[in-house]
């Protein structure tokens, strides 16, 4: 079934594969993709993961910094950068050192939950530290 997923090949863009089932919409929300052609397949059968999501983005080559943000939701994601219909770069994601704007601070008393500002988290050990309230959280504590 995995190989049978029929979606038109893209000429230039990014393919995000091996995303946890049900994560595609959250991941799409991380990027400003309102002007791009985007195809999201959800709950696709996967021999490795049981079910998975995948996303194809036409006309946008996501940077490593951008795709590393995905690691918070989808640590097993693979990224294919497509140029001239061919895979020009294939990479995995790794936890970013700094995350700006993507995460909401789980600390309800953090000022970022009441004022308009860009949240900022720094990786600290296996956790992320809010640059404002200084609290640290495991990835699973964030609402993604």
């Amino acid at each position, binding site marked *: 079934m995995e190989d049978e997923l029929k979606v038109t090949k893209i000429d230039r863009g990014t393919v995000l594969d091996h995303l946890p089932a049900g994560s595609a919409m959250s991941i799409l929300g991380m990027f400003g993709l309102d002007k791009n052609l985007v195809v999201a397949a959800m709950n696709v059968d996967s021999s490795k993961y049981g079910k998975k999501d995948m996303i194809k983005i036409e006309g946008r080559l996501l940077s490593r910094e951008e795709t590393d943000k995905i690691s918070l939701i989808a640590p097993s994601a693979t990224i294919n950068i497509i140029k001239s219909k061919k895979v020009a770069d294939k990479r995995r994601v790794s936890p970013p050192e700094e995350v700006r704007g993507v995460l909401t601070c789980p600390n309800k*008393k953090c000022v970022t939950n009441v004022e308009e500002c860009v949240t900022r988290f720094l990786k600290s050990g296996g956790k992320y530290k809010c640059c404002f309230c200084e609290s640290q959280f495991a990835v699973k504590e964030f609402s993604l």
Partner: protein
Amino acid sequence: MNNMGLKSKDLISAADLTKVEVEDILREADLMLDRLKKGRPADLLKGKILATLFFEPSTRTRLSFESAMHRLGGSVIGFSGTEGTSVQKGEKLQDTVRNIENYAHCIVMRNSFEGSARLVAETVKIPVINGGDGANQHPSQALLDLFTIKKEKGRLAKLRVALCGDLRYGRTVHSLMYLLPMFGIELALVSPKSLRMPEYIIDDVRERFGVSPAFHDSLDDVISWADVLYVTRIQRERFTDPNEYEKVAGSYFVDKKLLERAKKDMVILHPLPRVDEIKPEVDSTPYAKYFGQTFYGVMIRMAILNLMMGGKR
């Protein structure tokens, strides 16, 4: 903090401070104390204006900063509580401070939201001092505590300090956790399990200073060990069950009986206000130094203000 050649122009968190910076502040506070004792006119910040923005009530911190600013020859504007301010009309914090930076040379702020002082510091161009942001940090209080310990004990090295009470929500102890180990001070943390120091601070301090504080749930465990007993208030509002509060609060009070086993030269500090965690009978003992803290607090705040606003030395 331009006078010291420091990286930061603001005082937001004790976690931002280096040992050199802390030593510089303590030295400056000593100079202020010396000036005061000699009765020298303090016009170091003449013409400068401090804005004290206390969105939450404060007695000591606000008055201490105001007293410090007046003693330095400067002026103070500000508010305590949001009644009558634009905040009550729904104005956002960032808009409020963008206006106030046009009125003053420095801001001291207390606000119930954690991280609010950092946000304000990133919003305005003038120096910002965190006068307490929720349960996060209160760096000027921790600096004055450190200064008090130094003055009362004559040194900082090789001291044993027990932090007691509400270590989870107490912002002053959060700040102290970053300052005390800088000077090789040994730490013991005494609290009920539900009010233990946040794990992320313990981890951070372990990583920075290579120390692992000991945890205790009774003052009995540390009373004969400590050179300094730093007591904080256990707040009733932290407990959903009033019986649980009564049970916990009652087991963390200091009285003369407890002090029978203390070292003769031990000192007791408290950021105040106290409720009943230190019995009034202790006030007249040589251990009680908590009212002296407020005097040293003015010296520390004079030092911070002078260093941050670039006054003469």
